[in-house]
């Protein structure tokens, strides 16, 4: 399959897309653009025929694993089945071809959908204020922290510290930093939950927000949750819930009910918007009523006549993105929620729990699972013993499993577990697939030597040299003459 770069396939004079001759009278380009602005020639893009382009990109696609082709138990990423109906319906011209600057009068259908989605997310989260604007989970975190900052500023409180769990996604501290906060990490205890003593020690009147992931990145629901949220609220701080793991608790428990004040959703995870090779996602946030006035603009309102309107909240932080938000992703989330309905969504989480606990019940006989007999929608195993006894690292395991036709789990995250192997099967994989995956893991533990250390063997490439890539970065193709 394709290995040549587009640029290497280029031949001067080849063409794919062409426009027909202009059917209007118009001065030449030279008369419309002054010399000082006009380029002598267009950018040196590759020159290709349409057949080249299609074969190239179709060929490249076959070098990817994907949910459509493989089991993809990448922990924390919720790689569930992406419904084809959602792709079809999000592509209706009355959705796909709507311009963001159209007037409200011409977008009532879409605004109705977005309004309903706001309400759905409020119901699922138990938090009434909703902004659909953020473009990704991390963007939602940042937005929520900007909201919190504005709230404290308005309240005249000078709180500059954000607490994060040491098991948190790296985006938590990074988002806090971008929102102008200093961060402190709260330790996990031996059970993988929040260390209450450490929390108490770090919580004070400087604390603005405690960012919490629950269930956390170990796949554990923190049973101390009410105690935690009460403690934080008593200190005058807010609880932010990282919603990356919402797939575990839909209809089972609601962040707003267990004490969260702000949260984001990852619709591309929880509500099966496809991940698109790394994006686009979306990161809508939900907040308590007293925080709603600070949400970014616009949100969708419905007036007395039943007309949908865009509105800027009274004390809005402004905007975090141009236009409304990642509407294409949001439409898919809406369709997903409608497809299941309220009871169905709970069943999603139940099946996610069932699948994860079933796989856990098999994997724990193969490798260590440090934190407990039960998990929510994912669990974290450790290759520490395997590494000591057989020289089999988490990396080896991840690489070798590719040869068995499975995508690898997440490895080396969360940082609180050595040689972490984080497995999230999701609810859309069959028992047969989970059995086959466990069987493959088991077989790998009986393998040894180069078979595992040099794995994968069946893929086009194997163990790329990351170090050289970073030390002497080659970040673009250049014609020979330029690189010489």
């Amino acid at each position, binding site marked *: 399959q394709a290995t040549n770069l587009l640029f290497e396939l280029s031949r001067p004079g080849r063409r794919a897309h062409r426009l027909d001759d202009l059917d209007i009278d118009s*001065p030449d380009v030279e008369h419309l653009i002054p010399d000082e602005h006009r380029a002598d020639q*267009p950018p040196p893009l590759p020159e290709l025929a349409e057949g080249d382009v299609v074969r190239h990109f179709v060929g490249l696609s076959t070098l990817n694993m994907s949910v459509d082709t493989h089991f993809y138990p990448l922990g924390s990423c919720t790689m569930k089945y992406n419904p084809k109906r959602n792709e079809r319906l999000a592509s209706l011209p*009355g959705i796909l071809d709507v311009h963001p600057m159209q007037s409200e009068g011409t977008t009532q259908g879409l605004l109705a959908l977005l309004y309903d989605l706001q309400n759905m997310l409020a119901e699922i989260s138990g938090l009434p204020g909703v902004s659909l604007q953020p473009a990704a989970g991390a963007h939602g975190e940042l937005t929520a922290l900007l909201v919190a900052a504005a709230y404290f500023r308005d309240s005249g409180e000078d709180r500059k510290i954000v607490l994060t769990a040491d098991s948190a996604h790296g985006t938590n501290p990074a988002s806090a930093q971008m929102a102008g906060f200093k961060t402190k990490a709260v330790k996990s205890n031996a059970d993988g939950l929040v260390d209450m003593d450490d929390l108490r020690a770090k919580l004070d009147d400087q604390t603005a927000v405690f960012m919490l992931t629950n269930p956390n990145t170990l796949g554990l629901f923190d049973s101390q949750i009410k105690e935690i949220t009460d403690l934080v609220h008593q200190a005058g701080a807010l609880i932010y819930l990282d919603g990356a793991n919402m797939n575990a608790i839909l209809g089972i428990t609601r962040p707003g009910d267990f004490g969260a004040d702000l949260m984001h959703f990852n619709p591309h995870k929880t509500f099966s918007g496809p991940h698109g090779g790394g994006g686009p996602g979306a990161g809508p946030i939900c907040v308590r009523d007293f925080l709603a006035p600070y949400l970014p603009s616009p949100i969708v309102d419905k007036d007395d006549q039943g007309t949908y309107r865009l509105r800027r909240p009274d004390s809005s*932080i402004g905007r975090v993105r141009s236009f409304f938000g990642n509407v294409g992703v949001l439409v898919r989330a809406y369709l997903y929620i409608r497809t299941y309905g309220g009871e169905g969504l709970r069943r999603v989480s139940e099946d996610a729990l069932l699948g994860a606990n079933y796989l856990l019940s098999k994997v724990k006989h193969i490798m260590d699972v440090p934190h407990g007999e039960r998990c929510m929608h994912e669990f974290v195993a450790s290759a520490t013993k395997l590494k000591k006894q057989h020289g089999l690292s988490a990396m080896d395991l991840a690489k070798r499993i590719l040869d068995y036709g499975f995508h690898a789990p997440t490895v080396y995250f969360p940082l609180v577990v050595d040689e972490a192997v984080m497995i999230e099967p999701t609810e859309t994989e069959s028992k047969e697939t989970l059995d086959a995956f466990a069987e493959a893991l088991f077989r790998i533990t009986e393998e040894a030597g180069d078979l595992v250390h040099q794995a*994968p063997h069946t893929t086009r490439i194997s163990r790329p040299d990351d170090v050289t890539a970073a030390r002497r970065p080659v970040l673009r193709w250049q014609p020979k003459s330029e690189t010489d």
Partner: protein
Amino acid sequence: MAYLFHTDADRAQMLASIGADSVQQIIDQQVPQDVQLQRSLNLGDAAGELTLESEMRRLAAQNSSASSHACFLGCGAYDHFIPAAVDEIASRGEYYTSYTPYQAEVSQGNLQVMFEYETLITQITGLAVSNASLYDGGSAATEGVLMALASVRNREKVITSEAVHPEYRDILEAYLKNIGATLVTVPVGDNGDSSAIISAIDEQTACVLIQHPNFLGRLEDVTAIADAAHSKGALLVQSFDPISTGLLKRPGDLGADIAVAEGQCLGNPLQYGGPYLGIMACREDLVRRLPGRIAGQTTDRRGNRCWVLTLQTREQHIRREKATSNICSNQTLLALRATVYLSLLGPEGLRETASHCLRKADYAKRRITASDRFDIVHDGPVFKEFVVRDRSDDVDGLLRHAESQGILAGVALGQFDPSMNDCFLVAVTEKRSRDDIDRLAAVLSDAPCRSAVASA
């Protein structure tokens, strides 16, 4: 139910292996009773595919769109033509159902696309390095400023202009508010020249953010601004229109240090504003401040050329609060579309597209101003967008009238700047036919007036 797999028999076997009586028991063992929801979510019943499709078709039919109407709306989102091959490729499951290429061995497709995308972006910007994409043009502009602030130490002033997209400036303001930077926004002079921006630049200035062609369609004197910024030790961040590079000099050629853009125009659908594609490129020496994912070339253990995510030490999952940015996704699917789009166009196709936009915009200007009611506000060159003044000062009525005639005629500028209440912005892409433009002019000139035409 919908996409679920487990049959009753599966469930029983799985629970037996787990050693649990029921899923409820598994829940009870972990989630305290007092936080469990004691009712069903109030989200209605499950809807089958046929039901959902009927409803969505009805709902979609309630919206006007660039399919049902001739669209002259711009402001950073444009109705350019998307060749069918773009959709065909991007709809392959291997692309859209995969994730961030954490395992390079089974992600060479996405990684090579990212590397090709980055190269194409360096080609259209004339800069040495591109990341693998950001959220959209607006947040990219802000990330460009943040990057400049981090690169130019000990300066906190950021200068921008009212001729930069107002929504982009809103984002910039929201981001800068908490981190102690000062934002200075220079008004647009009547003559549209760059003297106001240039004179605002001082030794405290970390960077200047401009847009060229600017929000009102005009061409800025980028080189002069770049020179002024550089002479004071500041960086220039330029927001540009990727399609315009088919004719206009590129940001890097004009002296920009960091180029950002909305990449929607490169083969991505309008979809009411998103998901879109944030483009960002910079000079080679700024690379370690560049936010977002970056794919780079390397070799594998067998010596084969291949691609990996690289320079990850900048990133949040390693650096956490010391990361250059909190961004951990990129818009791979939209970057793929842009990559395919630019591959199909090539240099000549891009020039042709830019040239059609330019010349059709010029034609539209002349047709619209054939009516006494309308002025073109600015002299001087534009690319594909220009400001029209309604001398009857009834922009809203005018645009509603045009909508009813099947035309999305322009964007009312009063919503951004009350002093432009009588103005609207018209964008013309290569998709607009002569007939579309003639109809636009006719519908505008035939529109009922709220008041008589003001005397000239």
